[in-house]
């Protein structure tokens, strides 16, 4: 609404990006994101005793995870060579366990639409994202547009549920083996920041599917992903910070009413030395009070 404030946010964003500990701008109190779920009430009320019990159950796993982390830190044996043509799979679909890493949401969850969506195992043992998209807008005066289905991975975490980042710096391509139905899907890479203005930082690109009975292996370089926040493409674009990846997701929202189905075999990463592009969108200096306002 008031464009001058956005200048200040951008300064903040830049300082965050430059990793300066010093605040070069005044602290903002107006572009405050109240709650990281955007106002949607998704928390289930669990009584304290139950929470303690569940927590203690998980203690064993967490300690095991922690000891493993300590061992890895001690061994200090990082992968130094990323061979071209070798795909390192991050999320593989095949078992029920693999499905638990994903959260499925759609617009009908909070009464904002009429689409249906589900993530299951397909007949061949791969993941199947299927459902029906409906762009019918519910008549409650609040919703303007409807029709989306989304799956997202859980946030990368260390032992004891500490929030961590996925570090993909060594790679430059995202590889997906999918079998779609001809529709276009949106790939979302969340690089959620610490500050509230950076909570909704997402990088997107479109996954075009061929459809048909053939599997397709799609390689999308990270340089093609563009930044957006809460669905609005940002004016000042930066290449994706691959050391700060928090979640990955796939959305269906192509405004076409009808059923969709996307079989996913795996999602992986690759380093392709032939791809030398750093970023596909312009980063030159733009007029001061016009851009990002």
């Amino acid at each position, binding site marked *: 609404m008031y464009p001058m404030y956005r200048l200040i946010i951008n300064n903040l964003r830049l300082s965050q990006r430059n990793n300066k500990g010093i605040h070069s701008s005044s602290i903002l109190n107006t572009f405050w994101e109240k709650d990281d779920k955007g106002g949607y009430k998704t928390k289930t009320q669990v009584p304290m005793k139950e929470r303690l019990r569940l927590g203690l159950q998980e203690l064993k796993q967490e300690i095991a995870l922690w000891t493993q982390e300590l061992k890895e830190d001690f061994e200090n044996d990082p992968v130094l060579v990323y061979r071209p043509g070798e795909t390192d799979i991050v999320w593989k679909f095949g078992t029920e366990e693999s499905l638990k890493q994903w959260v499925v949401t759609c617009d009908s969850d909070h009464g904002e639409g009429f689409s249906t969506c589900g993530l299951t195992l397909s007949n061949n043992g791969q993941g199947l994202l299927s459902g029906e998209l409906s762009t019918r807008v519910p008549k409650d005066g609040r919703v303007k547009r409807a029709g989306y289905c989304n799956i997202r991975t859980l946030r990368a975490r260390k032992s004891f549920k500490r929030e961590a980042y996925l570090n993909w710096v060594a790679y430059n391509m995202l590889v997906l083996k999918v079998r779609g139905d001809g529709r276009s899907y949106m790939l979302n890479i969340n690089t959620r920041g610490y500050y509230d203005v950076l909570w909704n930082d997402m990088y997107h690109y479109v996954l075009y599917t061929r*459809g048909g009975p053939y599997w397709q292996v799609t390689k999308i370089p990270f340089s093609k992903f563009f930044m957006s926040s809460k669905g609005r493409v940002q004016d000042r674009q930066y290449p994706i910070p691959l050391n700060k990846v928090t979640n990955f997701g796939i959305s269906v929202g192509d405004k076409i009413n009808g059923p969709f189905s996307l079989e996913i075999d795996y999602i992986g990463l690759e380093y392709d030395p032939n791809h030398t592009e750093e970023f596909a969108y312009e980063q030159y200096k733009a007029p001061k009070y016009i851009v990002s306002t």
Partner: protein
Amino acid sequence: MQPTTPLFLQKFSSNAPESKELQRLTSFENVENKNRDTYLDMIRIFINRNHVYRRGHVEFIYSALKNMESFGVQKDLEVYKALIDVLPKGKFIPTNVFQAEFMHYPKQQQCVIDLLEQMEDNGVMPDYEMEDLLSNIFGNRGFPLRKYWRMMYWMPKFKNSSPWPVPSPLPDNIYELAKYAIQRISSVDVQSQITVYQTKEIESSIDDTWIVSAQAPSQKDLLKNHDLKEPVYVEGSFRIWVKDQLVNYFVLKRQPKQHIKTIKDDLDDVSNIRTPIFSFQKPIEKQVQVMQSVHEQEDGVILAVCATGTSTKDSLLSWIRHLEKDGNPVLSDALVVFTLRTGTREVATVNNVEQKQIESK
């Protein structure tokens, strides 16, 4: 910044009604003949009714936007330009820094931003004439113009990014759609050949329709080496989307071959390195395997793909006969099983299979 009358309105000015009757502007919903011309007429009537003041223009534009779909003009750029043209030129341009910063005439600016948003939703790319319009109305510091600049930056970047482009507007004809669909599916193999058959050419066919079929030379070879004891399946109908239209297609398939599993050596494992210097070890026997084509998949070997006008079993039978004539003589002796999934599940019963055997011989 001289406001100029755009060309499209000049065309209509010759048809402008000259009568002095009171022209009542009926609401968009009450119009009987809903098409592009009547929509533009409505806009003209609104402008001519009160040329100077144009009271209620924001509400008019909002109501016009809401009714675009019922008139079928939501993807028409000229219509959007005509709507923006309702706003007066020059009046809303800010004259000092404070006006520019605090969204001068916010209601009008928000209205045009919503109009541009609707354009974006419908995938309509604006042009330079619209930029002139917006700059004449809101000046170069206006928010609608900023939104326009953003649209003009981002939309062309993704307009042609699909690897399987299709003309816009898409033809209504199912035959054309099926051709696009089969082209899309068979783009996996560069050597695929798409042929259009007519069911009429087969004597015993009941249907009279077209069949768009795709088969590559490697698929023909796979069929040639097919073991006649195993059946060949015609599976369908599967769905494929071509932009926003559904096409049903069928696949001629075979059970997957069990390939020799490659021993995956963990190259980083150093616990068991072979050292022929210190001891004689027999060389490991390795087997050579022909590289699999893209048509040999884990869930089956795909031998051909087709789409027919009427997705009936009869048309599929004609397709098999055509394929047989067109370089796959194996199909005459092979056992073809139809596993068609339609509204009522049609599974090939024993009788049908026998019938097919009789037909083929």
